């Protein structure tokens, strides 16, 4: 008996050697889960949940939307300027009076009033908000749509994984990911995906013949220059042809929507973009971003704000009601954000300047418990409770989608990146 117990306690030589190796040489126990086990990326959140949102509509207010006159409104504060607040469909939540239609849908939304950033310039703020990494010369980081496609694939194999509807030419896009993950950039939603049908004079047989001929003539070139960059361009052509031949090409055609729909959303690039976004998510595109520019109001904010807010309000209100009516709002996360807010103090030109220290963003649907406000500022100047960093905000979006926040992927230059750097999601927002 004693000898058995003794032998049970004794380490065999093999086990002893293994233990030494593990402690001294850093050989990880979790070899099977190698990608997740990296201690090289400390600080990224391990929070994860089953996805409550299947898709995202990301509304980006470019230029720095004023937080005090819209969602971060503090009733009665002297920093409010000439904007009053109105009641919303959510108890105890008030927003600026220029957003009446949106106020009717706040019972599905959560306002985050305590966002804080260090990037006060447009290009840097824009980049930071889209990628959760500060702008640097060494790498271009991917945006959320590309990460979503990388981790969870496309919703519709023929259509692009993510679509960005913007007037802006520059967008971080898919960053260092391969060409297949780059989003499709659309400049003018009203005209749809231009040149997506063959010219009428050309028959399908002719077109296919020419495509075949093109790849035949290219063969020598492709063989002698077998580089990733060269192949990437060929990939873009292949993607384009796939989109052309897909049955869901009608998703890009806004003329298929009824005139009442167009009336409800309104005219203008943003409104048509929202309508197109709703169409695209119905056809399986999982990430659509629509940009509304012109928020950079350094002068005459009282004169410029009503029109800009009217554009936003009409389209946003119509889109949210539309999504709810179609039952899509439960698993579609609608995000409204900007790169920074605007100063609480009105400047000498009757405008407001950049203010990244405290600003607001809003989330609707996609598992968010509606009707709540997260974080507080004192009159919009300083964040007083629950400060949220921009990576944290993006981590919340990734958390809703069920993306792994600590999974490290490497760029072509072998640098490690995660979805939102070290962002921690605001899990209390989810009901």
């Amino acid at each position, binding site marked *: 008996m004693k000898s058995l117990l003794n032998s049970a306690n004794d380490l065999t030589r093999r086990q002893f050697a293994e233990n030494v190796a593990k402690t001294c040489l850093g050989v990880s126990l979790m070899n099977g889960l190698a990608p997740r086990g990296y201690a090289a990326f400390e600080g990224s959140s391990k929070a994860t949940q089953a996805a409550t949102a299947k898709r995202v509509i990301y509304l980006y207010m470019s230029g720095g939307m004023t937080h005090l006159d819209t969602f971060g409104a503090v009733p009665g504060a002297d920093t409010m300027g000439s904007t009053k607040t109105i009641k919303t469909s959510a108890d105890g939540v008030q927003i600026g009076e220029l957003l009446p239609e949106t106020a009717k849908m706040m019972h599905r939304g959560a306002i985050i009033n305590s966002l804080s950033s260090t990037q006060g310039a*447009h290009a840097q703020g824009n980049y930071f908000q889209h990628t959760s990494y500060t702008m640097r010369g060494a790498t271009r980081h991917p945006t959320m749509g590309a990460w979503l496609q990388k981790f969870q694939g496309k919703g519709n194999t023929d259509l692009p994984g993510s679509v960005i509807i913007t007037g802006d030419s520059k967008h971080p896009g898919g960053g260092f990911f391969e060409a297949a993950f780059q989003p499709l950039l659309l400049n003018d939603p009203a005209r749809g995906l231009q*040149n997506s049908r063959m010219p009428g004079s050309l028959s399908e047989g002719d077109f296919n013949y020419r495509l075949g001929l*093109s790849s035949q003539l290219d063969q020598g070139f492709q063989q002698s220059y077998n580089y990733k960059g060269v192949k990437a361009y060929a990939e873009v052509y292949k993607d384009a042809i796939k989109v052309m031949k897909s049955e869901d090409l009608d998703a890009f055609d806004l003329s298929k929507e009824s005139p009442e729909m167009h009336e409800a959303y309104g005219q203008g690039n943003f409104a048509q973009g929202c309508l197109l976004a709703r169409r695209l998510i119905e056809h399986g595109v999982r990430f659509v971003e629509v940009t509304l520019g012109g928020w950079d109001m350094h002068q005459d904010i009282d004169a410029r704000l009503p029109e800009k807010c009217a554009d936003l309000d009409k389209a946003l209100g119509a889109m949210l009601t539309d999504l709810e009516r179609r039952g899509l709002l439960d698993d579609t996360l609608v995000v409204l954000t900007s790169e920074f807010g605007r100063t609480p103090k009105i400047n000498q030109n009757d405008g407001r300047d950049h203010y990244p220290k405290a600003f607001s963003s809003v989330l609707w649907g996609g598992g968010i418990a509606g009707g709540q406000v997260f974080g507080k500022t004192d009159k919009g100047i300083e964040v007083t409770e629950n400060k949220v960093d921009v990576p944290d905000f993006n981590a919340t979006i990734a958390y809703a989608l069920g993306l792994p926040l600590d999974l490290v992927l490497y760029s072509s230059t072998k640098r490690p990146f995660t979805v939102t750097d070290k962002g921690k999601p605001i899990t209390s927002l989810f009901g």
Partner: protein
Amino acid sequence: DLRAGYRPSKNDAAKPARPPLTKQQVSSMTKEQRKAFMDEYKKNMTVVKSMATRASEQQSPARPGTFLRTFGQSDRELIQNASDEASVPQALTMLNGPICESISGPSSKLAQMLEKATSPMQKLDTLYQAILSRRPTPNETAILNRVIADRGDKAVEDVTHALISGSQFLFVQ
């Protein structure tokens, strides 16, 4: 509101009916007649549908969705906001856009050069020199001969389209 500027309503921009002129008619017009025709057409149109306008004649920045913007022209909101990324709309413009029709139409410079060549093989030779700045390799010549045998008259247009939408045109050496 003066600040909003002059914004004619979208419905005013009625699409002008494209005058029924065939390619042959266009190529047989004299230079003056063509110029007069294009002036009339341009006066009635708000959307640039052909490749006949110069980039410097367009508003700057060009309207979103037009050729220059699709290929990365800056929107001039920030300094150096131009993009040099490839995108699917760019590929679609090369595949289906007015480029191929414009350069292989009978009134283009390329067509005039091609008319000087006599045999189909010489035409394709000229085409290669115009588009890729080189002569076709022996392998390519074999492929082109087959194309001429299969397609006859349409060979030149086919090869133009194939070359324009291929990788070599992007990386002309």
